[in-house]
């Protein structure tokens, strides 16, 4: 395997408003590479397949163990974490593209602010105690509930579910599947139920849960196996009840 190679085909973009183009790279094979470690090698040897010295490919990564969400990109047509994409399991040449639903900053680096804005919009957090305790003692959670919530808590805001969602794009206001999963999680948390109605009302705004088109792609690509469609079904029920409450009780 002395002459074995790893071949890449990378979609590049020099700056946010520049036109994208493809650049091919070839590097020597070494066992155990993943896409991020291979990109690190290319950063040290920034020469494309035609032997021309180029600017190193820009990408984002942190944890290298598929928990931070930073290195999400489209690998061979599928959005996933580059650090968990093992070269030995990929068909070559390996195509790398930035997530298409977010503005490209440079090469494979995208601006995912829209997702974080959505998390703020739906108050996807547990409120801390104020000037007084808001609960007595530690809230009890059954192991069954805990194991479901653990799944939702694994969301790393990587954006893979947004990438495959046909309802989420630059011309739509849909907040996308990931923030919906976080609402489902936080609406179950004992102390977090204080925001329950506010979260649901935020979800009933334009771009909220009613904009889901039930394509159900999100759940199929989630690298953390988060039951997003279950969250959407559950929130459909909760918003139905909230809507009727707002109509008849308030």
């Amino acid at each position, binding site marked *: 395997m002395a002459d074995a190679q790893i071949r890449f085909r990378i979609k590049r973009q020099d700056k946010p408003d520049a036109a994208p183009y493809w650049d091919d790279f070839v590097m020597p094979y070494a066992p155990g590479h993943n896409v991020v470690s291979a990109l690190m090698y290319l950063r040290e040897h920034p020469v494309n397949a035609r032997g021309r010295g180029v600017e190193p490919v820009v990408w984002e990564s942190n944890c290298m163990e598929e928990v931070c969400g930073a290195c999400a990109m489209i690998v061979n047509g599928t959005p996933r974490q580059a650090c968990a994409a093992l070269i030995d399991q990929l068909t070559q040449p390996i195509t790398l593209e930035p997530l298409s639903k977010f503005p490209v900053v440079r090469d494979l680096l995208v601006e995912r602010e829209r997702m974080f804005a959505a998390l703020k919009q739906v108050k996807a957090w547990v409120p801390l105690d104020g000037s007084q305790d808001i609960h007595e003692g530690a809230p009890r959670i059954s192991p069954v509930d805990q194991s479901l919530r653990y799944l939702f808590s694994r969301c790393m805001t990587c954006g893979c579910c947004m990438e495959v969602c*046909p309802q989420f*794009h630059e011309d739509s206001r*849909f907040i996308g599947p990931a923030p919906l999963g976080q609402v489902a999680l936080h609406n179950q948390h004992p102390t977090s139920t204080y925001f329950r109605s506010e979260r649901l009302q935020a979800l009933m705004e334009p771009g909220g849960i009613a*904009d889901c088109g039930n394509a159900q792609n999100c759940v199929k690509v989630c690298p953390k196996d988060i039951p997003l469609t279950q969250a959407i079904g559950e929130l*459909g*029920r*909760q918003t139905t009840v909230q809507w009727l409450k707002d109509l008849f009780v308030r």
Partner: protein
Amino acid sequence: MAEAVAGPLDQHHFAIRRLHSLMGIVPIGAFLFNHLLTNSTAFLGEKNFDDHVLWIHHMPWLLAIEVCFIFVPIAFHAVYGVVIALQARSNVSRYGYGDNWRYMLQRVTAWITLVFIVVHLVHFRFAHWFGAESYAAAHPYFLAFTQQGFTMWLPMSAWMVIYVIGLAAAVFHLCNGLVTFCITWGVVIGDDSRKRLSLAAAALGLLLMAWGLISLYALGTMEARGPGGAEPAHVAQHEHLS
């Protein structure tokens, strides 16, 4: 200009979406079921069909019912449906999951059904605006009149193709819409319950499709006797020749 329209639409966004979802099932889905019921009486015989249509024509408040429970809901569902359909960026070529195909087909069948309903209304309900005989004049020989409609303007084979496509699109859109309705309103939540519901909806779809097809078969092949119970013209001619 778009901003001015966006105001009340945004303010009642959730309610409008839920209304759109509900309208698809009640009254439109219920109407489709009733329409297929009426059509299928053709399969049971000319008298069955004529009697049933006559009964409908004798319903009190018929025009009000037609406008409030058929025309207005379909118009709302169609117009707002176009708004929704235009927001989709279907990606089945890249992500060919079954559910994604159904998402795409739900929108494709929506367009087909919309065109088909317009054609169908012009063909039968408002044909007299376009120079054809009014359906009211058919009274009480509705089956004979309907059959004439299937040879008006186009050959019967062409009409049959149009109606089979329209039927299939409408039935798919309703049955898949039944599933998405149940997800939207929170009737089903988990994956297993959704799969069970999808199977039930598929079975219902096949049933409705078969029901619609036997109606079209009856309309295409039955020999209506028409006014005075006379033999159909071509049968009489055939006997005369022999």
